[in-house]
């Protein structure tokens, strides 16, 4: 079933594009060029972030932090290894990507921790950045309950990610 998703999307998008008179191949290649640029632009960011995260891991600081919050997170059903991700996710998208990538590499992409980190990254957004962009553009200074409500959504996303991975992949 799941193996049909990616090829299926490729087919549907191509057929839809052709029916709308789009030169699908040229567009695919053009977009691919932009993808290459995006990936190249990510190099310096990820170099800095992975440098920092690797240092944290080697120094034992990550283990210390994990150990400190482990009882609470384990009780909630969240893998304690993801604690850094929980803290950084709403603040910085690129830092979260760096931390998540390190978790996925260290624990393996198909491990419980690796999968949970991936689902957390995929199901939440950089809350504070989004709030700043939208309210800044609309010239809003009193944001009322927007941030608390958005953080509720993030917390729910983290919990749901942990539970969904346990439920769907077993552990």
């Amino acid at each position, binding site marked *: 079933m799941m193996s049909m998703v990616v090829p299926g999307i490729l087919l549907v998008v191509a057929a839809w594009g052709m029916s709308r008179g789009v030169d699908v191949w040229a567009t695919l290649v053009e977009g691919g060029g932009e993808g290459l640029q995006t990936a190249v632009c990510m190099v310096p960011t990820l170099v800095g972030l992975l440098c*920092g995260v690797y240092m*944290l891991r080697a120094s034992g600081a990550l283990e210390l932090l994990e150990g400190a919050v482990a009882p609470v997170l384990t009780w909630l059903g969240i893998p304690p290894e993801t604690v850094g991700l929980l803290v950084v996710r709403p603040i910085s998208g690129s830092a979260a990507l760096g931390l998540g990538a390190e978790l996925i590499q260290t624990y393996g992409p198909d491990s419980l921790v690796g999968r949970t980190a*991936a689902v957390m990254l995929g199901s939440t957004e950089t809350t504070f950045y989004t709030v700043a962009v*939208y309210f800044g553009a609309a010239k809003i200074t009193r944001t009322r309950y927007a941030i608390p409500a958005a953080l509720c*959504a993030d917390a729910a996303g983290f919990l749901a990610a942990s539970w969904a991975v346990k439920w769907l992949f077993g552990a």
Partner: protein
Amino acid sequence: MAMSWIWLVMVGASILCGAATGRMEDVAGAALEGANAGVELCLAMVGVMCLWMGVMKVMEKSGMVDGLSRCLHPILSRLYPQHAGDGQVMGTVSANVAANLLGLGNAATPLGIRAAQLMAGGGGVATDSLCMLVVCNTASIQLIPATVASIRQAAGSTAAFDILPAVWVASAVSVTVGIVAAKVLARVWR
């Protein structure tokens, strides 16, 4: 600025902890090793990123956002009762949600900002619908999380996209909680 602080804390905490635990040598090695890992990760991600950006470009050019946003219009009118009759606001919001679903961040943000400006109406105080718009945009509803899948692929996953159902469940829970929280808080937080 936030990133500069995060960087400072990461380096500072590593040095403190490394010195305390006597692992300074490992820390020094890890700094350079991490820099290499950053490049390797990006290189390994390039393939999936290129493919997916190409597919997204076809979606954009073939007007998939418009098609999807027409389907979303009736549902979204219920989330924004104050603007249900306003075709321009609802059209922009629907297109914003459609672009978010398809993962077209570059298209979604300008649409969302336009909707926020249309909703604001001056005064500097966030209205209920403006808060709802922001909460919905801070929750990720992307159907295909391509960047995450490419990281998994780069790390040698056997099926990089097998997390999709879990991502959909988690996203749905997150958005629902956000919407409910916003609706409840709207009554008490004036």
